């Protein structure tokens, strides 16, 4: 792995780093090389570690092939590449690509990707002099635990880590054109390994088998509790009104304004009497009231008056009319005499008509 930073320093190899797969291959070949040298050292106590390592590397190489289509990495578009051709490869894209490549590598290697990644990056960015020449892969890998469980990575902190490290090695003469920098689009964050990416059939499991009866009864009911619960549910979705209509709806529900449409039935919803019962009262005259003459005239006026009265119920109105009916009934004799009441037969004929 220590070789990696050496490639970095040689400008011709810089290009390779732009391609994460080639980069990965480099790392892998490098690893296998150093592990071979380990074998040559013949350290029996490390044998187990080495065989593990070999497995690991094999797996990496396999993964490597699969990785190619899976991971899309930002590559400077053709136009932009032309733009920056003269400067070979500017440092900014290299930086970005290193980070990405390393991220990918870290995710491929079992173990905590965060640790791996930061290790790789520190290695990459440490100047060659500081690294002891004998430092080889096995020394690094030796310290790693093989842990299959992927832990949720905290990207921000990792990104910060990377940035901090990069910051230190940022060249002071940064004369990159902004278009060049712009070509560096942020990548989609590599997804965590997903345990159950297959479709879960939510209702496909076997039932528990507790409720197998056909008939169930409703138990006793706490009516007030239920209504309070409904009240709370209603309040949970009652949010500050977002326009005037909503506000009016709210006010209507709270009983702060008259119900719409505003008519003379306001507040009388409880007695389910239609308005015609209140207004068209002539129907109660039929059968007893003469069709013309002073009594008819009087009764019609009574009906008009009653129909305009909003304060008494329809029944009271009817009662009122019936009172007159009885009254005239009592005075029938007199009325017949004065001719205000037509003779019996006539009235019958009228009603037939």
């Amino acid at each position, binding site marked *: 792995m220590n070789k990696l930073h050496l490639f970095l320093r040689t400008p011709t190899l810089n290009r390779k780093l732009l391609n994460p797969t080639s980069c990965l291959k480099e790392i892998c070949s490098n690893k296998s090389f150093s592990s071979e040298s380990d074998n040559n050292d013949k350290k029996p106590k490390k044998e187990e570690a080495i065989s593990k390592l070999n497995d690991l590397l094999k797996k990496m190489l396999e993964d490597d092939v699969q990785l190619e289509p899976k991971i899309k990495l930002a590559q400077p578009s053709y136009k932009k590449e032309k733009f920056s051709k003269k400067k070979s490869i500017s440092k900014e894209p290299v930086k970005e690509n290193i980070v990405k490549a390393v991220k990918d590598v870290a995710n491929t290697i079992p173990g905590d990707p965060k640790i791996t990644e930061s290790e790789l990056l520190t290695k990459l960015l440490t100047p060659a002099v500081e690294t002891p020449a004998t430092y080889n892969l096995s020394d690094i890998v030796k310290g790693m635990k093989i842990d299959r469980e992927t832990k949720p990575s905290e990207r921000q902190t990792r990104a910060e880590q990377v940035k901090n490290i990069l910051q230190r090695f940022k060249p002071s003469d940064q004369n990159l054109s902004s278009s060049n920098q712009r070509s560096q689009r*942020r990548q989609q964050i590599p997804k965590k390994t997903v345990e159950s990416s297959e479709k879960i059939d939510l209702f496909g499991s076997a039932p528990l088998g507790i409720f197998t009866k056909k008939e169930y009864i409703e138990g006793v009911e706490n*009516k007030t509790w239920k209504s309070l619960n409904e009240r709370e549910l209603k309040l949970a979705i009652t949010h500050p009104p*977002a326009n005037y209509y909503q506000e009016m709806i709210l006010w209507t529900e709270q009983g702060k304004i008259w119900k719409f449409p505003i008519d003379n039935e306001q*507040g009388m919803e409880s007695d389910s009497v239609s308005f015609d019962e209140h207004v068209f009262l002539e129907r109660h005259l039929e059968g007893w009231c003469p069709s013309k003459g002073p009594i008819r005239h009087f009764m019609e006026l009574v009906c008009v008056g009653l129909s305009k009265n909003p304060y008494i119920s329809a029944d009271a109105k009817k009662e009122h009319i019936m009172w007159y009916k009885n009254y005239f009934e009592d005075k029938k004799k007199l009325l017949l005499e004065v001719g205000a009441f037509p003779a019996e037969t006539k009235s019958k004929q009228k009603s037939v008509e």
Partner: protein
Amino acid sequence: MSLFLRFRLRNIQKNTLGKTFYSSKAEEKIEIPNRIPRGPTDILRALESTVSRDPTAAHYKYHDDPFLIPMSNVGKRTFAMAQESGRKAAHWIRKEHADLFNHRECEPPIETFFPKITFNKNSKVTEEDLKNVIDDVQISEAVNVYKICKENNIEVSQVSQQKLLELLCYYNSEDTLDKEFIEERWFRQSSRLKEKQRKIWRDGNFAEELFISIENPTAEVYSAIIQGMAKHLQVERAWQLFEEAQQKGIIVNTDTYNSLIAVSNYLKEGYDQRWSFAFDLLSDLNRANLKPNLGTLNSVLKTLSTMGTGRVTKTYTLQVLREFKDIGIEPCLASWYYVLITFCKDRGPTSTILTDILNFVENKEHKIQDITDTNFFVTAMDICRNHLHDVDLARRVDKMLNFGSNYDLMGDSYKESIYYRNYFVLLSESLPLEEFMRDIYEKYVPHIYVPEPGVMGEILKIVDINGAIEFIPKLWSDMTVFDHTNRENLLETVLDIMVNNEIESELKENFSNIAWDIFNRIENQNENRTNKIMFTGDLLGKILTLVTRNKDFIKSCTVMDKLDKGHSTIVGVPKIEALSLFVDQCIEEKQPSRAISCIQYCSDSGFPEATILAARLNEKLTLDENHLNNLSKIVGDLSTMKAQ
């Protein structure tokens, strides 16, 4: 009426006969549609459905005065709370001066506007009054009336007693927030939720007194008291009473079973015990022939969601879903919320169950069925961002939220801001920056969502990575509006971005203005502030760089003076690049004394580059004797050095 109809009918027949020559004699039937009964708000709702949310306009509650429209989160909250406190003041006056509000102007009168009837010891009460206050959810007043009834030996029927008991149990004998105060409810935050983690049932409260006073308690009575205790986490006593009821052969209702299942994590420690506890209660329910309901499903799922990350928990969850599906109980959003938190644990493996759930709940309008329904959206978005990092899924969740009246299920302002926080950060990380700024940022900020400082930091970070510095002026002006300018880390990020991206364009002037703005803001901080931002050498160096780049020499000098004078108080020193830039600027402006004082500062700060700067000054400008002397005092003999 009928006459009129007949007339019309005849008319129509005549018309049709006259016009269509061949029309048969078959009688034409006119169907008069039945009257559709409309509720009082139906027309309003129809009108309302034509108005959609305008993201460019402030919320309805803020737009009374365009000059006072709040922009920051704090501002919005303060504004709404001020309105609310106005309402409360009005309520208080009405209560204190009830006699002034009995003017019955309108007919029919609007009862809500009249002062509430209060009762004292001497007032004559009836059972009717008790019923009224219970229906009006005035808890302490209900207790009061009940006590007066008892004192005056007024018989209170068992039905009313039961009503009162249920009211007291539901609200733990405490007054609840009036339904009028919608704003307070919206901004109350979920602090209440945290409060609910511990026992809040007040032992020996009036509900318990009432319970004891009831002779031969029925199943309703037991159900009410057990539910009340379980709801307010007096779990041991609730369980005790449940067993007591069972011994007496009283069968409590399904909701009571539900409430006990829901608190199993307080009653049982181990996961296995919890599950067997819930399982036993379910079996009891079945044995008692009681019909399980949605609440039962949610309680079981809630229990399962507290049972760790094991695989078996997930299996149980799916089994429970199937079990209830078979008896015809469809899960609601609350059920899915519990399923989500069961499957997607922070420390567990990743699960894509959200996709499957979305397939099931998408493109539907959801009505609230459980108080926990409001947790669904915020949790789903959290999982999209932190668990799955899936933008497409996040977009689907957002689409579902905006479907029909689903937005009502958002919960409160706190949940809403967490929802958007997750949505924003996820999108900003995944979308190309231009697209994000154009489609998302412009749309939601500031009226629907105001990014918190943390989110703003994330956006700035992404701007930095993309080098998209043209957004900086816009973001800075937003930051000033949102009150983010007292965050040291944000100020530093902004300055860093501006310093690290040197450009030749009109942005330079913008940057200089921003830097100057930052300088002034730090300079003119309120003396009494607790955590004031202190100038650091680095910070001032960056400001110096930015104003110098724009050739604002006077401003540069002010910053340099600040540095120079505060040499002992300001922590750290600026980068030498900033100082060197300033010296160059001095040379350009032909201000050798300024340059010399800067070189003095360099030398005092221990920069070896002071000599180089001095040499450069000497070379570029013809210095008089005085200046030369000063310069040589600082860096030694000038004649021996050469500028590089």
